[in-house]
């Protein structure tokens, strides 16, 4: 299956693979700005027009980009900015301020960051001077002094916009939106968020100053487009150094995408989530299996990758429990069945376990109570069982009420998979009632 490259012109296969990995990894892991956006042309046009009006005409705007995680909000914005900055005039004129709700956790930090990014006069090197109030007054002064004709427009990008709404009094949002409403320096406020109810988080005065312009990025992807995306993400560009290898690879990708089993797996992923990030994860796992030994992508790769993606983490953890811990989990399952999900404590579980031992003649699993307790504590550490209320210090350990964080189907599945599970324990676990 491996085509040996004997010709002098083409590079050795190791180097080709290395180039391939480099190219595809940059695409899959490093969110490079895509050259064009599929499926969101309209949004792109809308946003670009809006920002152009701010940059060129000095019009103040505010807009929210809303979409679920991984739906390409940042990609859309980056794309628009790249297109916007192609104009010389804009490039010279426009000031950008990028804020992130995760990093700028309160208004003080955000304000310092704004001053720093705008390079205002109270910035020396990398340091910002003055208190919060001084900074705010200073910044507002600077913004107020300007007017639409002479001042350079400022673009504020607020990533994780919903987190800014949790700041005290929403001072920053109020001031930014207020500037965008009144005839002061031209600003554009672009918020990115994944919360659909983000407007409900805003105070009334802030909400009234917001232009209520929203761009929704809800994926209306069909499976055919999804498949196309897989192919386009995996295929090599035309400017790949080794033409012949690139052609080989691209044809193997095409064959790969037409395969029925691959389609089935991708359909399964498509049904569980439409976003491209989880797809990239899957493709990345496939890609990691490509090496000089295995230079083409094959259906087996994606099969293995999807098995990794879809494996249930809790069943994996159950697989590694000791016999004693497994017995306790089974006892808890029975308690849950009998008492319909009521919380339990250690004594009840131990009692249930002892009942099982009594029914059996042999005493292989007859452990002392402290040993059982240690196993119980281990289960608690793994958070397979959770205390009902947090006050652990107040009640004795053996009487603390717990809830089982496992489904009974998970337990049954784990019992099937468990290596060398003793038959009696298996039967006890499978039986409907303890």
């Amino acid at each position: 299956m491996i085509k040996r490259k004997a010709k002098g012109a083409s590079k050795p296969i190791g180097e080709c693979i290395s180039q391939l990995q480099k190219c595809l990894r940059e695409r899959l892991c490093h969110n490079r700005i895509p050259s064009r956006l599929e499926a969101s042309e309209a949004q792109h046009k809308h946003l670009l027009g809006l920002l152009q009006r701010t940059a060129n005409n000095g019009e103040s705007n505010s807009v929210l980009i809303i979409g679920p995680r991984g739906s390409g909000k940042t990609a859309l914005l980056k794309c628009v900015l790249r297109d916007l900055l192609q104009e010389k005039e804009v490039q010279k004129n426009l000031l950008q301020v990028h804020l992130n709700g995760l990093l700028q956790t309160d208004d003080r930090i955000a304000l310092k960051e704004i001053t720093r990014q705008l390079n205002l006069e109270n910035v020396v090197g990398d340091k910002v001077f003055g208190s919060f109030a001084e900074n705010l007054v200073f910044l507002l002064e600077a913004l107020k002094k300007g007017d639409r004709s002479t001042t350079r427009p400022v673009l504020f990008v607020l990533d994780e916009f919903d987190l800014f709404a949790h700041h005290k009094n929403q001072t920053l949002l109020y001031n930014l939106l207020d500037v965008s409403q009144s005839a002061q320096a031209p600003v554009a406020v672009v918020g990115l968020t994944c919360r659909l109810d983000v407007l409900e988080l805003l105070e009334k005065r802030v909400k009234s100053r917001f232009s209520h312009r929203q761009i929704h990025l809800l994926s209306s992807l069909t499976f055919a487009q999804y498949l196309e995306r897989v192919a386009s993400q995996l295929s090599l560009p035309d400017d790949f150094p080794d033409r012949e290898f690139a052609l080989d690879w691209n044809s193997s990708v095409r064959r790969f995408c037409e395969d029925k089993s691959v389609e089935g797996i991708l359909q399964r992923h498509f049904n569980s989530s439409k976003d491209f990030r989880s797809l990239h994860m899957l493709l990345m796992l496939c890609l990691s299996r490509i090496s000089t030994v295995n230079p083409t992508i094959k259906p087996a790769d994606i099969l293995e990758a999807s098995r990794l993606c879809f494996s249930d983490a809790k069943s994996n953890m159950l697989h590694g429990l000791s016999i004693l811990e497994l017995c306790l989990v089974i006892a808890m399952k029975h308690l849950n069945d009998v008492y319909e999900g009521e919380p339990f404590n250690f004594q009840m579980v131990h009692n249930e376990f002892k009942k099982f031992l009594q029914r059996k003649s042999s005493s292989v699993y007859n452990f002392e109570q402290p040993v059982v307790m240690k196993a119980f504590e281990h289960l608690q550490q793994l958070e397979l069982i959770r205390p009902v209320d947090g006050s652990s210090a107040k009640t004795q350990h053996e009487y603390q009420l717990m809830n089982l964080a496992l489904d009974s189907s998970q337990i049954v599945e784990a019992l099937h998979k468990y290596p060398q599970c003793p038959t009696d324990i298996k039967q006890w676990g499978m039986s409907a009632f303890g």
Partner: protein
Amino acid sequence: MSSSPLPPPLQQQRHPGYEEERLRRVAEQLPCREVQAGMLLSLMGEPQQYSLPCIFIYGHRASGKSYVVNILLKELELPHATISCVECITAAQLFEQVLLALFGGDAAATLPRYPSLSDFVRIYRHHRSRASAEQTRYIVLEKAELLRDMDANLLSVLVRLQELVEDNLTVLLLSELVWDTFRPNTGCLEPLLLHFPDYTKAELHQILSRDRHPSYSADLYASYIHILLGIFYAVCRDLRELRHLAALNFTKFCEPVTEGKAKESDTHKLWRNIEPHLKKAMQTVYLREVSSLEWEKMQQVETETGPLRGLSAHTHVELPFYSKFLLIAAYLASYNPARTDKRFFVKHHGKIKKSKFLKKNEKTSNHLLGPKPFTLDRLLAIFYSVVDSRVAPTASIFSQISSLVTLQLLTQVSHADQLDAPKYKCAVSVDFICAVSRTVNFDIIKYLYDFL
């Protein structure tokens, strides 16, 4: 478990960009973990290539998570920062350690006194732009479950740090818990989940047999490990714990050989000798009742193991006379339903059978459900009826109650600021209260509803 084809071991897999010699050395140091190491290496790719923003590695304790990652990063000399989240109480310490390991002391010194996430990212970017990465940088966070209790945004930031600092960076989170328990409410970038499976019995045997005693044959040690696993495997699969137990008990195992009572080939004899000893070890050393040092001493002086009382045997507490009765009264109040008080403590109650009392939900024993809260009045009423002599309700009685609370023999259920009618629970075990009542010649079993 699954019949999927496993990737070939580390040496046969080609990992371009790394020296063969080094890969061989890594493979030598990672017994039974070639598959995981190979998987991790192929995900990491060549040093110059971009890697995933975040990889979340989970698996049971002592399944080699940190070991594999650290060996890989160290032997292949990749720039990395390994941080244990146990040591970092605040996020500031974490930032400092990351900057120190990746950019040296100067970078760490530029952090302000109370750095925010914003400061950290800014300083990281600043230094990154000066010393741009030729190789992927790695940040390894061990015991990542503790990150959840730190800053609210910290986990979300770390997961997408690659994007925020615009660097060729991978964050590796290592934890015992599953990712489902980590996910914040509003979601975050999903990391790649990688599972380190537990060692099978054979693998445990193989790893444990590696550190054999030089003066005995490998077969002897292997058979010793076999016996050890036979006893402890059902209870404990923790490699570290097993290794510790193996090291502790080996001298005892070899005793017959050194004394000349048995030869190395008499496996049955050796097994007969060690088995009761190991079973005792499970009840003592494994539970940390007896410290390892004491256990070793006990073996040397050849006393019968076990007469030494462990930590939990020291439950006897010397209490004042009235405190004892207060505690007994509290125990009775906690474990008996209030309706039965009349029957136990009023003299002429007439005959009432237990069956008449039984309500449907009271069929399960109270010793299974745990102590119930009771009011101070009820405690005092029972106290007066169990104490024979007349006791005045002096301040000292009340102060004894509160000192029982500080000794954690009672717990106060109601808020501490509620002065009238506070509620308590009794927090001692049956054995303890039986011992206490024996010292004052009080038959507590007679008064307990469960044992009627």
